[in-house]
């Protein structure tokens, strides 16, 4: 279904006006997100006008979703619509840039929602650099009216990428574990939602304990651990069809699965007789390869984005630390060397390749989310709490999501935080939530 939508969008997407001017013309409406904490850019996002009540409502909803996406990124500050001096009644009305400049708006999003003769709607927008008075981007999307929300996320992504120079992450989903019931008999269900919490639904019924879901980078699939019939096994779950399939039924524990970057293999940990090692399995041939052979607990493998290396956790040095090896298991090197009794787990390679995110604990009673370079240098702490763990990367490698558990069996919730260490946000979920996994940008 998403593929079909993609085709529709591709066919109908038209660049409204080529950005005929050199990029330095609108040099002011730029954000350099590599600089750490940045002052959010004031941006004006008026309602997208429509010529029927239904289209007006949709236009209002679309502009709201765009504004909320951009605001949550911490990089933009949508200006209160009540302050606007000009009513942009259609996409062809020329903005009076002097009016928008008095609001200190640096960027302006002008939009429209129309009904087309074929019954589809068309949502279009122009992104203006207010100070330069130039259009930076413009695009229209024809689609079924039910897809308006997704189009709004795609527009937010295009605005984000035009202004920051980085790809966006708003047209994405998050799969996670919804938790309910008492801590000593927790019910855990696989659940999925858009990154902003919309379109929430449960994928499993809670009859089997499920843990650690991860998205495929290449299709509508999730791999996760399920205790179906009280046997912990790695499963694949197709989100579109609901079809579930066990990765392989061999004796012992299999856990901690994660897809390879091309989606054709899964790396995981397996224990035959109480000795956990890292393996990969090719999803087509079902051929299993053992990558580590060590009496320690080797677990939590995560591929580099090129697929040539794997980071994993092991307690072979006495306490759990992070290691990096080649994808064939050769050249295993320890990269984490924290002070004291620091333990490091759940290493996750950034989609950009430049960093590995991790959970650290064992020193002062707190848990930390941090990042380090793949050679172990440049370690930084981003978030801390009584029990925070399990970071997952936004597909552009700029934001991390993780879960945080309160003491004494208290609430478990999802949070996101920028790589800068700023802009921490709670991700609202209907129930307690853990083990988040961010999808790639939707195809």
């Amino acid at each position, binding site marked *: 279904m998403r593929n079909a939508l993609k085709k529709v969008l591709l066919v109908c997407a038209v660049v409204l006006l080529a950005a005929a001017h050199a990029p330095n013309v609108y040099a002011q409406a730029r954000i350099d997100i590599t600089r750490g904490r940045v002052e959010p850019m004031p941006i004006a996002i008026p309602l997208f006008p429509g010529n029927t009540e239904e289209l007006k409502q949709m236009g209002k909803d679309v502009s709201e979703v765009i504004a909320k996406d951009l605001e949550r990124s911490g990089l933009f500050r949508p200006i209160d619509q009540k302050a606007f001096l000009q009513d942009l009644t259609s996409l062809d009305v020329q903005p009076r840039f002097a009016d928008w400049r008095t609001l200190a708006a640096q960027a302006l999003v002008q939009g429209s929602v129309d009904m087309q003769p074929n019954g589809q709607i068309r949502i279009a927008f122009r992104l203006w650099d207010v100070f330069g008075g130039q259009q930076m981007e413009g695009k229209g999307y024809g689609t079924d009216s039910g897809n308006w929300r997704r189009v709004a996320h795609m527009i937010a992504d295009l605005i984000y990428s035009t202004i920051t120079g980085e790809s966006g992450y708003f047209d994405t989903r998050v799969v996670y574990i919804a938790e309910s019931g008492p801590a000593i008999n927790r019910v855990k269900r696989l659940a999925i939602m858009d990154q902003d919490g919309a379109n929430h639904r449960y994928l499993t019924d809670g009859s089997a304990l499920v843990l*650690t879901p991860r998205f495929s980078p290449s299709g509508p699939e999730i791999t996760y651990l399920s205790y179906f019939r009280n046997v912990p096994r790695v499963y694949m779950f197709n989100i579109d069809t609901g079809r579930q399939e066990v990765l392989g039924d061999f004796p012992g524990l299999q856990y901690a699965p994660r897809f390879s970057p091309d989606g054709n293999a899964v790396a995981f940990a397996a224990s035959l007789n*109480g000795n956990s090692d890292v393996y990969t399995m090719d999803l087509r041939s079902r051929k299993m390869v053992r990558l580590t052979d060590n009496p320690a607990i080797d677990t939590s493998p995560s591929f580099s984005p090129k697929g040539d290396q794997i980071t994993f956790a092991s307690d072979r040095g006495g306490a759990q630390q992070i290691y990096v090896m080649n994808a064939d298991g050769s050249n295993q090197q320890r990269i984490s060397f924290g002070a004291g009794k620091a333990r490091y787990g759940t290493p996750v390679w950034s989609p950009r390749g430049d960093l590995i995110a991790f959970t650290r604990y064992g020193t002062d009673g707190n848990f930390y989310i941090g990042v380090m370079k793949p050679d172990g240098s440049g370690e930084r702490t981003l978030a801390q709490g009584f029990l925070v763990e399990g970071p997952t990367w936004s597909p552009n490698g700029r934001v991390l999501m993780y879960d945080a558990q309160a003491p004494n069996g208290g609430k478990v919730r999802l949070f996101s935080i920028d790589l800068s260490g700023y802009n921490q946000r709670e991700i609202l979920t209907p129930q307690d939530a853990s083990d988040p996994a961010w999808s790639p940008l939707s195809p």
Partner: protein
Amino acid sequence: MKLRFLSVIAVAVLLAACAKKPVETAATAVSAPPPAAAPAPPRGPAPDSLEYFNTVVGNMVNFAYDKYDLDAAAQTKLRGQAAWLKQYPARTLTVEGHCDERGTREYNLGLGDRRANAVRTFLIAEGVPTARIKTISYGKERPICVSSDETCYGRNRRGTSVVQ
């Protein structure tokens, strides 16, 4: 504490004595009444019952933080479990490995697996046939105690022998 320790030994000795009776007859008599000669306590569960195993023999051993080795108390209890299992050879066992919450979910799954296998290996060394013992790790997913303090953590770091 010491008293409980001694009583566990006493039970183990009694069980070991029982185990000298011909095993062949016991194999076909799962639900048969306990041997009349057994000096069972005046009240309490029948020696062949799950309740007896869980409460008198003891179905749980505990571990130190991030460890899976069996201390003397755990070994004594497991000898009791092995003796009981040899006495009732139709019984099978699943050893559950559990952890406290002070670790990542995935590492704790591996640690729980090691703990369960430490118990299994010990029971096999004590003469329980390999085929009768399965293991499962629950990591930190099934605590029996939810306070975030060491007393509770110590209880949650456990290997539980679930007899079928």
